[in-house]
């Protein structure tokens, strides 16, 4: 233990230290602190979950006047959203947009694997000139989606809203999630010694990378793919500005529902996405992630 950490533990000789001493004597934190923090946890969970649960519940209701939605149980809202029934708001249902977004998101995901895995590897494994800069660039989005979209409109005037434009935009905006997830996976293995073992056994470097490194980081790559796919499938900020119209991406369908449809119908539309996220979190669980996060534990 260094001297530094000792000095942080030793109360400083000042007026405030006396206050801390007093607090220590009274020991309020032991009795008040834990319940208080627990209360924050509970309130946060309530705040985050109640509207989500209410939305899902409301999607099966016929009316929502008063405190809670009523008139269960109906699938009408879902039918309208799924395009099986005519309703107010956007026409045609969610299916075509969802399929389109899923395809574009898959394209973005593939691009992210091709781009993210190699750079994550070089950042975890090697030291090189300017590494800090490259790392910052790779793990943090360069610009917000909406700003990138403004730039895309002029740079690719005929393609910004095309599938290709969306794939490139999504890949760039979501690549940090891939890089971080894969990095986290690489960090948990003994990267250098595994690479060097394989090479000493006669595997060329590309072969080592493809047959030893990538398979060992499989879970991380899958997790990163799932995360980037999900985020791209519902990407709104970039999509809204480049405004592809035919077919209309899923996020824009959601927006039209939220801004123009009756609330119960919007609830069903949003619930479609909740179902996707739920499936995604279960899938992430199977590759060692607790929840929708890049961090492995």
């Amino acid at each position, binding site marked *: 233990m260094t001297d530094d950490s000792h000095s942080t533990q030793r109360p400083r000789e000042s007026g405030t230290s006396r206050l801390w001493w007093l607090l220590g004597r009274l020991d309020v934190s032991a009795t008040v602190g834990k319940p208080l923090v627990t209360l924050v*946890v509970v309130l946060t969970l309530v705040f985050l979950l109640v509207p989500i649960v209410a939305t899902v519940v409301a999607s099966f209701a016929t009316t929502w006047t008063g405190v809670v939605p009523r008139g269960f149980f109906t699938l009408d809202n879902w039918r309208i959203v799924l395009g099986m029934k005519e309703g107010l708001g956007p026409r045609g249902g969610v299916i075509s947009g969802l399929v389109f977004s899923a395809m574009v998101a898959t394209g973005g995901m593939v691009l992210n694997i091709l781009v993210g895995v190699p750079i994550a590897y070089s950042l975890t494994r090697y030291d*090189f000139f300017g590494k800090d800069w490259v790392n910052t660039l790779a793990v*943090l989005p360069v610009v*917000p989606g*909406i700003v990138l979209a403004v730039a895309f409109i002029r740079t690719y005037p005929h393609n910004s809203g095309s599938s290709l434009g969306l794939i490139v935009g999504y*890949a760039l905006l979501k690549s940090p999630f891939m890089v*971080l997830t894969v990095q986290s996976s690489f960090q948990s293995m003994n990267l250098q010694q595994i690479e060097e073992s394989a090479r000493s056994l006669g595997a060329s470097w590309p072969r080592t990378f493809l047959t030893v490194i990538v398979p060992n980081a499989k879970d991380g790559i899958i997790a990163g793919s799932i995360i980037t796919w999900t985020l791209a499938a519902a990407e709104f900020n970039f999509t809204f500005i480049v405004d592809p119209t035919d077919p209309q991406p899923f996020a824009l369908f959601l927006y039209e529902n939220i801004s123009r449809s009756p609330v119960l119908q919007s609830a069903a539309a949003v619930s479609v996405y909740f179902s996707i996220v739920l499936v995604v979190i279960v899938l992430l669980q199977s590759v060692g992630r607790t929840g929708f996060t890049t961090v492995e534990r």
Partner: protein
Amino acid sequence: MADAQPTTTDGRFRRIQAVISPTTEAERRRRRILVLCLPYFVLATFGAFIPIGVMARMSLSTDNLTNEGFTLEAWRTLLNDGIYLEVAWNTLWFAAATTLFSVAIGVALSHALEKYSLPFERWIVAMLSFPIALPGIVVGFLIVVLLGRTGLLTNAVAYFTGGNPIDIATARTLGGLFLGFAFSLVPRSTMVLRGTFTEINTDAEEAARALGASPLVTFYYVTLPQVWPGIVAACVLTFRTALAIFGTVLVLPALNVATLRLSLEIGDLGFNTQIAAAIGMVYFVFFFLFTFVSLRLVDDDHVKI
């Protein structure tokens, strides 16, 4: 591994040649690093660098449909029209306020997750992370569900106080927007901070407790210095995220922030691409400088999403 920098063109040529056809392992390693980083830089070039360059040019264009001519008009408007200063101020203070709030809650949550044996901890973490997957428009909708005119809380309050839900609804007020931001930011800051909290040296904490320090005193003198870099990193990342929030403000337009203004310039106010590009440039430059300056202050290891 910096070898002596070659100063002559000849030396530089040899360096390039060494990358293309390396002879030593050190040279092969250099080529490897380059090859590994190349795909990302190709994407970044076409996906970000060129578009941002074009956007810079766009802000100086005399035409709003194509890049032509040269005028500083858009930049002049940005500087002289008070509305943009107001937008900038709104963006910054609101992002800062929501960041501080979200990081404070995040600290409490990470502390609880790490220290208390909460029931169903994995489920709690999974539920906490759920909002990270939600786009801003959905978050806006959820706030409406909670606090809008037909919202749960609104009507519950109206029921008990006998008030009119329309007067009580707060979703589209500043408070509602604040909660909307917090909805997105609290899970993010918590996920960043969780990593930091798991790395706390519990021996030092236990030693402090054994020496008679109360939990609060221990937290202040032993825990806080250890998690401080993580907290700073969480602030940096959360602030960046807050600056980029758009969907939530679009659904709950309670405050004229930069992202909202940007969409107005492109949409409802006409096709003011020069001004939109100028705002975009200010955004980019600020984002960039903020990130690099603030990350010099913290360890890269804390950068997580």
